[in-house]
């Protein structure tokens, strides 16, 4: 038994090498090409820049482990940012944040109900939801920007801009969310049940697991962390733009996929998702440092995504081509 554990671990490491190698190669490349890349200040900067995507990625990892997608996170980020900013002056920061989190969870509940209970296709449902949420945002704001009347008079800005012991507060939030989600996934009954449901919904149901509820909870979790992301974003910019989160869904999904979470469900790792997001964030930072045209980073993302996933698959099956 000892032996099989070691073997399994060794194999597992080999499978995941693709991501780690890609990550290290990028770090080496950027630090050779730019002398500021590996400075403390820049590392902190990158971490803070990916913090919002990273927070949302935790929920997305759960959703994808359950065998689904959530394309609505981008527009939900916009909505929750709008909510927290527009309510801040009216009901105070804490109640506003609570409402934003509730809005996130409400949207997650709706998606979760349609996908978990009615078993509708998550891709199309969340695409529809993306439009609905965007519309709700616009109707709510009347298409105007929301902002705080007196940004300097509130501690709310600390969430997105503050530092604790030299570490940006959003990074601390990110770390906490990552740890909580990782612990839930690896150490709790819910986490195990989620892996089971992602692996085989029917068998899970026949083991007394409420698979509908588990799926629903993944979407609620996704809505919740998107709400957190929206709050951090709102606090960072102290204003809200109706389309500010547009396209986040693809960034987040790209990161999670880079992290090796299986799209067929049943497997996934929060830390790896974060590493994937970090790659996405590093590209943007590194490319600006190198003075590459802005949009070349998209091409680089394409190449890295394909190469990392390919290496992963190839090492699993021991062959480059199937």
């Amino acid at each position, binding site marked *: *038994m000892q032996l*099989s*554990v070691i073997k*399994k671990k060794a194999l597992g490491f080999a499978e995941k090498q693709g991501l780690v190698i890609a990550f290290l190669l990028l770090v080496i490349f950027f630090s050779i090409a730019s002398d500021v890349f590996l400075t403390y200040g820049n590392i902190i900067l990158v971490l803070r820049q990916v913090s919002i995507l990273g927070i949302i990625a935790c929920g997305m990892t759960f959703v994808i482990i359950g065998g689904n997608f959530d394309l609505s996170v981008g527009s939900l980020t916009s909505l929750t940012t709008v909510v927290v900013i527009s309510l801040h002056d009216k009901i105070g920061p804490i109640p506003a944040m609570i409402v934003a989190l509730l809005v996130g969870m409400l949207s997650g509940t709706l998606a979760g109900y349609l996908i978990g209970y009615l078993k509708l296709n998550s891709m199309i449902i969340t695409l529809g939801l993306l439009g609905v949420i965007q519309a709700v945002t616009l109707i709510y704001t009347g298409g105007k920007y929301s902002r705080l009347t007196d940004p300097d008079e509130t501690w709310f800005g600390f969430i997105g801009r503050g530092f604790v012991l030299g570490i940006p507060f959003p990074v601390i939030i990110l770390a906490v969310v990552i740890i909580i989600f990782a*612990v839930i996934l690896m*150490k*709790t*009954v819910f*986490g*195990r*049940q989620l*892996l*089971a449901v992602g*692996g*085989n919904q*029917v*068998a*899970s*149901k*026949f*083991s*007394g*697991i*409420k698979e509908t509820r588990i799926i629903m909870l993944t979407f609620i979790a996704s809505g919740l962390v998107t709400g957190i992301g929206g709050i951090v974003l709102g606090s960072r910019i102290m204003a809200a733009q109706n389309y500010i989160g547009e396209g986040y869904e693809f960034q987040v999904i790209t990161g999670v996929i880079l992290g090796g979470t299986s799209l067929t469900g*049943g*497997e996934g790792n929060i830390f790896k998702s974060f590493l994937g997001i970090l790659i996405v964030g590093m590209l943007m930072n590194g490319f600006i440092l190198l003075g590459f045209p802005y949009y070349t980073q998209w091409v680089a993302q394409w190449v890295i995504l394909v190469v990392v996933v390919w290496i992963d698959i190839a090492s699993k099956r021991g062959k480059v081509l199937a």
Partner: protein
Amino acid sequence: MNEEQIILEVKNISKTFPGVKALSNVNLKVRKGEVLAVVGENGAGKSTLMKTLSGVFYPDHGSGGIILDGKTVSFSNPLEAKKAGLILIFQELSLVSELSVAENIYLGNLPRTKRGLIDWRRLNEMAGKIMADLELDIDPRELVGNLSISRQQMVEIARALSMGAKVVIFDEPTSSLTEAEKEILFMNIRKLKEKKVSVIYITHKMDEVFQITDRVEVLRDGQNTGSLVTAEVQLEDITKLMIGRILDDYFHKNQAVKGKEVLKVENLSKAGLFENISFSIRKGEVVGLYGLVGAGRSEVAETIFGARQPDSGRVWINGKEVSIRSTEQAVKIGIGFVPEDRKEQGLVLKMSCKENISLAKLPWIKNRGFLDTAVEMEMYEEYKDKLSISTPGAYQKVVNLSGGNQQKIVIAKWLSMTPDLLILDEPTRGIDVGSKAEIHKLIAKAAESGYAVLVISSEMPEIIGVSDRIIAMRSGRVTGVFTDAEVTETTLLKAIAHV
């Protein structure tokens, strides 16, 4: 044996998976036009052997060879094997349900007109001819998805014939067939024989071995243990070679003292599936639910387990009326359910043995809110021993276990819950005789340790062998209740047969 008649010969084939030697130096000879049974325990290597023959797996490097029709062959994929005349019909049928019967028969080889378009007329004619040849009444234009499972199997056979099969391999073909459908299959196998096509027939159902095969090849632990002529042997001879000992007590009669009523069902109905089902089970009692495939037994069981909702009817557990809305609730109330399709409903294949065993019990093995993996490990060790599950370790993924061991994992999952009511739906489907006997023993033991047990099975000897009471079902209705003392095969048959 006349060497000229040998169509397929396997010499010293070995096959190793990581951690498992599935085949070691296996030999096999198949004569022209014979039906050869290949039997053995779960995990003996039957399927692996057939997959190795037909190009799904490569044999181990330098481990002997395959001679087909006098020529040494080595296939790198099933297609090559097919082209050479060696056709494996998988348990999961490999047909395309949205295409027509004719298209499926000629899939990959559709006749074309001169312009390169599909020649539908010729296609349907050719398919029609094969159908007529097999005396099958199937319209070649019908979509395969509209056919019953057995008729789909016939389409597979027709396809094999159309490809000029020399050897057709069936791996447990009857596990989802009704009795009548089985007869049709056998008729077709006999037709294949007439056409001098050889058949390799893998099964765990010994009666089928005697019904249809000419010779028997027995495997055990990936090795040959005997080659017999069916007409000259007894069941005991075969099982002894399979499991290495004489199987004395095949069925275990449950000796438990019956206690209070655990389950009572009254007038349970679900439109289109079943109607007015009433019965009860007492503590320590094994009740058999018998009927043909499609009688609605699984649906009744799934309804009691909360996986489906009834239209009407009442259910009592331990004297208290309950309305079970979910499987979760059922488990809390104390019901365990071993479903009929272990791969789809029973197991999370990419999870490990340990994780599958603990799956139903997760909410109860918490320690300060977290999953207690130590307890989980203990559970695994306990049931691995109790049920003698053979697996390389707790972390082995169940997808790599043999059918019998997979089934034991599912049973272990529910025994660990110590349920008041244990429902087993076709618990021995695809299970070898040795493990079958073990599972029967487990059923009796479960009853003796105080569970109420409901067993669904389509095998009459089994249902008579294990049950204290038998409920017969036909087309969604209860058509008879028999005690162990009064039941005979004829009365039971009469109760379930279609009128």
